[in-house]
């Protein structure tokens, strides 16, 4: 630890029309971090994730992953490097079964997704079942993913991201719409992956109990700019951050 950052963002800027969604953001992450980005609605959290994962093109600035410059790379290339993302609104394959969903992600990661003449049925069976087990989706394996409950869809969303075997994982409001129990299960899982496998995690959340319960480092974003950064305690007592969150539970 303490060597080369796994993620290094320098002066990242993105504007939509006249709106500066990302305003000169610089940010650095060490491997194994478990950090969060918070901010009121419209602060630019999702835009930041979109820029980092290739969904949007940046206007200026640089993003480095393990030293490699990945600014404006297409999403699939970024994913192949080891960055995965769970979307805020479940972005799954509704017409495929849960099993097939997860298997697709795993096969993609293994590079087997263009194999023509092997039946897909037997491939990656163990890994798929394991990942289903880990994310608590085993009993829904044969269900059409479009028919899952909201909470299960979020879990599937996470499973799809994990299927890419990332070293760096972005979670966009991972517990939105989940019950207290589901929230705990999800965050415990993520926490375990961080501890045991060294998976670097960056997540955004509106649920402050989750943020303060799990993140070891916080960054506060407001109107596209970083206005506060530090440990949860430091941020909690930061005046600027408090002003931004006036009225919200801190």
């Amino acid at each position: 630890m303490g060597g080369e950052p796994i993620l290094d963002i320098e002066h990242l800027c993105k504007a939509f029309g006249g709106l500066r969604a990302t305003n000169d953001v610089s940010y650095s992450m060490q491997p194994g971090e478990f950090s969060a980005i918070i901010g009121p609605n419209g602060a630019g959290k999702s835009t930041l994730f979109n820029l980092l994962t290739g969904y949007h093109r940046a206007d200026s600035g640089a993003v480095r992953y393990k030293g490699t410059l990945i600014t404006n790379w297409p999403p699939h290339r970024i994913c192949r490097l080891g960055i995965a993302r769970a979307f805020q609104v479940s972005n799954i394959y509704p017409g495929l079964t849960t099993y097939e969903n997860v298997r697709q992600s795993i096969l993609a990661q293994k590079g087997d997704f263009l194999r023509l003449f092997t039946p897909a049925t037997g491939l990656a069976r163990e890994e798929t079942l394991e990942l289903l087990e880990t994310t608590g989706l085993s009993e829904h394996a044969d269900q059409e993913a479009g028919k899952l409950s909201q909470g299960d869809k979020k879990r599937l969303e996470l499973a799809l991201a994990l299927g890419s075997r990332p070293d760096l994982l972005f979670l966009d409001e991972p517990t939105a719409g989940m019950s207290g129990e589901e929230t705990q299960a999800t965050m415990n899982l993520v926490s375990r992956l961080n501890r045991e496998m060294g998976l670097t995690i960056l997540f955004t959340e509106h649920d402050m109990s989750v943020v303060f319960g799990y993140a070891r480092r916080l960054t506060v974003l407001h109107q596209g700019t970083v206005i506060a950064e530090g440990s949860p305690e430091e941020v909690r007592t930061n005046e600027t951050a408090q002003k931004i969150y006036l009225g919200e539970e801190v």
Partner: protein
Amino acid sequence: MEESYGRWRVARWIAPLLAGALLLPFLVGEFWVHVAVEILILGLFAVSFNMIFGYMGQLSFGHAAYFGVGAYATGLLMVKASLPLPLCLIASMAVAGLWAVVLGYFCVRLTGIYFAILTLAFGQLTYYIIFQWYSFTGGDDGLQGIIPPGFLMGATAYYYFTLMVVALAMAVMWLITRSPFGYTMRAVRENPERTKFIGIHVQRAMLANFVIAAMFAGLAGGLWGPFNRSIAPDLCNWHQSGTPVFMSVIGGPGNFFGPLLGSVIYTFLMAFVTGFTEYWPLLIGTIIIIVVLFMPGGVLGLAMARLRSSRSRLGTREAGGP
């Protein structure tokens, strides 16, 4: 879900179907054997189209371009170079595939209606190129005298040959739909965006599928020439491209065999109806409209839905799972 029924249905239906197909020439007259060849060739064409439509979720309105290119490849090689038919068929697949690489490169950069229109435009482009390249293709006169080799001249003989080639081609395509590649196509159909984010170069995958589908369309075209004894540039135009669309929609695009069933329905209808009226476009058009409005999953889609509801009524556990 189609998958649950896949293996089960294949085993149950394929055997009697194949048996019937093998016995056909002994059961019906030569006219219907001809019809059967047409069903097979157009069925192959439609199934190849469905690789792009049903499995990948894009509507190509220019698939006939590859059918036509394949037809001309075989036709020209047989007439001008006297190459044996099997070699010509392979050449047809290769030429159609190559043409698909060139055109498909641009098509896969678009989706939805733009994809449809571009494939339509490219189909017409192919038609006009063949049409006005008189010195090479014979243009509007078409190409005549495509005679199959001696032992395939009889209707029955050509039927068995076509059956063999088409069955083999369908088996290959079937395997492809069951493979990881096939699932990647479904993923691209269901959610192309997500597919990018799990590390797949979506356009490259789409192009690969487009080319494979075109190759099989070219194979179908190659079989058509010797069957019909002559070919014309018309094989490429957008009207011809509408045929596999119709077949897939009426048979059911959600099922591998849907387009083949569509071919049976279409060809039978055509053979039957043109016997007593010239207004078969009216009939076909009306059927299309009715199917679109009231039977969105096609015949097989309807059948599967009925099957599923009757099975759940009987309390049978769905044959499913990976």
